[in-house]
């Protein structure tokens, strides 16, 4: 096998293009070939580096960014990238709770991201992997302002980016499914921002799945407690 052939095989593996048998053969090969493994690790590190560079708000930097938001220490460069991500998520979830003609504008979303606005991370919706249920409850004090962050732990086949279909129903409304591209964070969670002000008290069912139908629809129930 030439050097070029080997590089092409490495790239094909990293890009998930090998059929199961070829992938198995390749894995057996690098299990016993340190040089091949080293080449593979470098190529994979390059991919991960590109991913982290593109996805900075959700890998490593994300939590720091939230903390900085709360403290008013948002850096301009980080703010731009992170704000873009939140704006996209915000707009996506806004569709769930408002009609399409009533979307937040970018400016409104940016206004909502002033450093003095609290961003709330509430209960993770854990998967059945840990034998816990899918439900979550938002407490009243988490609904006062800003954004709530939903974290979906997924057990889906690994991919750098998922095209996710999200639908919701509740409070007598059937909300149209929307499709968003979401990258899992380094824990394997999908993170979506929910404008807290749109979350009226009541029970919601959120349906989430990939658009390629590789996974069955997962249903999450969400109860928003009445604000006092």
């Amino acid at each position, binding site marked *: 096998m030439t050097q070029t052939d080997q590089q092409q095989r490495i790239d094909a593996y990293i890009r998930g293009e090998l059929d199961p048998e070829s992938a198995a053969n390749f*894995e057996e090969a*690098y*299990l*016993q070939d340190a040089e091949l493994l080293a080449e593979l690790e*470098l190529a*994979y*590190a*390059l991919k991960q580096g*590109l991913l982290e560079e593109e996805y900075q708000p959700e890998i490593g930097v994300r939590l720091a960014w939230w903390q900085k938001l709360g403290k008013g220490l948002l850096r301009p460069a980080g703010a731009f990238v992170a704000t873009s991500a939140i704006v996209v998520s915000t707009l996506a979830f806004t569709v769930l709770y408002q009609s399409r003609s009533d979307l937040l504008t970018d400016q409104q979303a940016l206004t909502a991201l002033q450093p003095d606005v609290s961003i709330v991370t509430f209960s993770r919706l854990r998967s059945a992997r840990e034998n816990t249920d899918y439900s979550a409850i938002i407490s009243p004090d988490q609904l006062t302002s800003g954004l709530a962050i939903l974290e979906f732990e997924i057990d889906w086949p690994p991919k750098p980016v998922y095209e996710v279909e999200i639908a919701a129903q509740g409070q007598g409304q059937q909300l149209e499914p929307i499709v968003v591209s979401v990258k899992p964070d380094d824990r394997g969670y999908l993170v979506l921002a929910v404008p807290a002000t749109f979350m009226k008290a009541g029970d919601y069912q959120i349906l989430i799945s990939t658009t390629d139908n590789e996974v069955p629809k997962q249903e999450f129930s969400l109860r928003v407690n009445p604000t006092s």
Partner: protein
Amino acid sequence: MGNHSINTTDQKPENADKPSALLSERIHAGDRSAEAELVQQFWRPTLFMLQYRCQNPAQAEDLAQDAMTIVISHLRKSPLENPDALPKYIRQIAMNLFIGEYRKQQRQQTSVDQTSIEQAVAEQASGYDNVYRQQRATAVQRLLAELPQQRDRQILRLFYLAEQDKTDICKRLSLSSAHFDRVLYRAKQRLRKLYDQEQKKSG
């Protein structure tokens, strides 16, 4: 335990003189240093394989440790019919664990002195990956920082992240196939050089 057994009859014993091929019998004979060698040799590729599949470093590390523990405990009980099939055997164990995790089934339990094996595996494995990972990460950061043209970055992103075909990328960016290959080749060569530098720095 038998459910981890694999059919090794299709394997040729031509590499039986390889040190790795002897590990199976040495471990069965009670040679503890062979267990350490097994972990040293197979930890990194097993971990990489699981990380690639799980996309979750912590979970991959747990599964890799479980895989090593199961392999050693099995080999202590009985050596492989074909010692040359050790990589295939390790891969199969790791994949079983991954699939088991994926299907939310209970993990395989080992009964042979599991705690001591786990401890030994953890000791052997600790530190191997962190150093390499850090060096690779630093090399990648340096590479991305010094990419000469925005287009090079775009090519890498389209190829590795968007997973577009080479043909599509070339068409979209009006590139020749040779140009595309050059960008990928140069990036990897440079990354290799930067990684070597990082390794030298670490002594």
